[in-house]
């Protein structure tokens, strides 16, 4: 993958063409074509069950954990088709990190959660203690947790408050140096304060990372994204800049949805 320094405005982050996905016989994604810009925050909105999570989980191919999933079409991430036979799932998932709906820190210490990615991608001998320590400090500082947690790094991560857990889940992606961060309703388990904190964090990470966030919260999409994609029943209905999409939606279905008529 190209380095962050080579980024240009026209450089696409994620491109899909004629993307279809079936869960056994049920088609959950229908002919999705989209171009997600690099370095920006793109939100995915739509009523529950329209396929937002499914689409997001295509981008790091975790959908394939279920044996009955079938995908056709093309997904290019940073210019590379991720369904090419020579693509390594491990490398793909290193460059495309994911944050889940419910914070899911592993049941190990805070420290080990953050270095988990480094440990699985490097030999034990390649990692020095100081390297790991530095990575932990950097990642926690980046998400604004360092001051709160620096004295309790050995505590179990599952004992933290939900907001801290979710920030930790973002922090643990950073040491593996992803290009893209996928977030699936990252604030749905959090209160207003926590939601605000995560949104601020997203803005802080914007530019260095391409962020795709699924949300069912219209206000959040409006506040926290550059571009917005509206989906309905497995199809992409509209994809425009967030401001435009909310001010004058081109498609009547989009208008209905953002006016809250269904969803």
């Amino acid at each position: 993958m190209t380095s962050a320094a080579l980024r240009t405005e026209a450089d696409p982050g994620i491109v899909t063409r004629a993307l279809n996905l079936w869960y056994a016989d049920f088609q959950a994604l229908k002919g999705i074509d989209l171009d997600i810009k690099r370095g920006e925050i793109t939100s995915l909105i739509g009523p529950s069950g329209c396929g937002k999570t499914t689409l997001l989980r295509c981008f790091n191919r975790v959908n394939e954990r279920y044996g009955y999933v079938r995908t056709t079409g093309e997904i290019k991430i940073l210019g590379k088709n991720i369904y090419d036979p020579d693509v390594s799932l491990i490398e793909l998932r290193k460059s495309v990190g994911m944050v889940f709906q419910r914070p899911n820190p592993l049941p190990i210490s805070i420290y080990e959660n953050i270095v988990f990615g480094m440990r699985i991608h490097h030999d034990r001998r390649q990692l020095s203690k100081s390297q790991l320590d530095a990575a932990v400090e950097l990642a926690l500082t980046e998400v604004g947790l360092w001051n709160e947690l620096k004295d309790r790094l050995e505590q179990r991560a599952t004992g933290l408050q939900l907001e801290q857990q979710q920030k930790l889940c973002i922090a643990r992606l950073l040491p593996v140096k992803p290009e893209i961060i996928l977030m699936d309703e990252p604030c749905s388990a959090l209160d207003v304060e926590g939601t605000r904190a995560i949104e601020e964090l997203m803005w802080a990470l914007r530019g260095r990372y391409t962020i795709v966030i699924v949300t069912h919260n219209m206000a959040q999409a409006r506040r926290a994204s550059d571009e917005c994609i509206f989906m309905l029943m497995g199809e992409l209905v509209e994809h425009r800049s967030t401001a435009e999409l909310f001010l004058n939606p081109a498609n009547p279905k989009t208008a209905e949805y953002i006016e809250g008529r269904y969803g």
Partner: protein
Amino acid sequence: MEHEVVTLGAQPTRRSMAPGGDAARRRMVESLTEHVLEWVIRLCGISAILFVFGIFFFVLREGVGLLFGDFSLWKFLSSTEWYPTSRSNVRYGVLSLIVGTLSVTTTAMLIAVPFGLGAAIFVSEFCDKRAKEGLKIVIELLAAIPSVVWGFIGISVMNPLIQTVFHVPVGLNVLNGALLLALMSVPIMVSIGEDALKAVPDSFREAAVALGATRWQVIYRVLVPAAKNGLLAAVLLGVGRAVGETMAVLMATGHAVNIPHSVFDPVRTLTATIAAELGEASVGSPHYQVLFLIGILLFSITFAVNLTADLIVKGVRRK
């Protein structure tokens, strides 16, 4: 309790439909049956406890008398000389029997733990639903084979097999008994171990997979640490099963009182000794009492193992 609330809540309608003492009588009968049922169930629960204590006290009473005579407990535990029926010089040293039990159990666990936990991981993480059901049925079948049948397999299958594979003169030895015990304790390890792995939330697996972990990394970095208490309990329950097993080891280990120097030596276990000799010892004789003392020893070992397993499992639940 809940039921009473329901009856009370239903009262007004009932009264309006059937005025008079009818409803009241029905209510009384209902509450009476409820009380009787509650007591029957309570009795069932208590009886389990009573039986355990009853058995313990019976075994204790039969054996403990010996400890007040000139019997040396130290000698009993530390001597390897087991000559309970000698005319001239009776000696009751159970060290060889303890070592016999330990050697067979340890060897069995060396075989069964990797197999059992490996199978648990395979069933829980690598099988699709269909294969999983099939495998579980087969494994449960394994648990249903009576131990005499295992002993029979030990004598007629394992014995010649060990003789030809390892070129040893006799195949009835530690290894034979251990193989049988391993096969007998694998089912419980698999089923408890699989439960423990199943209890690990899928979100942990997803977290690791999304960070680029391979299947093996997910298993040894996430699942095993997350399920370690349950897996440990699985192992301990397997150990408990192996320590207490009698018939199969009686038939398969050669039945020689002997401190083994290799897995090809014959031994005799605590359980096998009781089973083989209790019928011949006259009731109340020292020999008889010593056998009960061995029973107490066994009881204590399995009790300690099971209790540990239990506490560990409880620890899992609390979290």
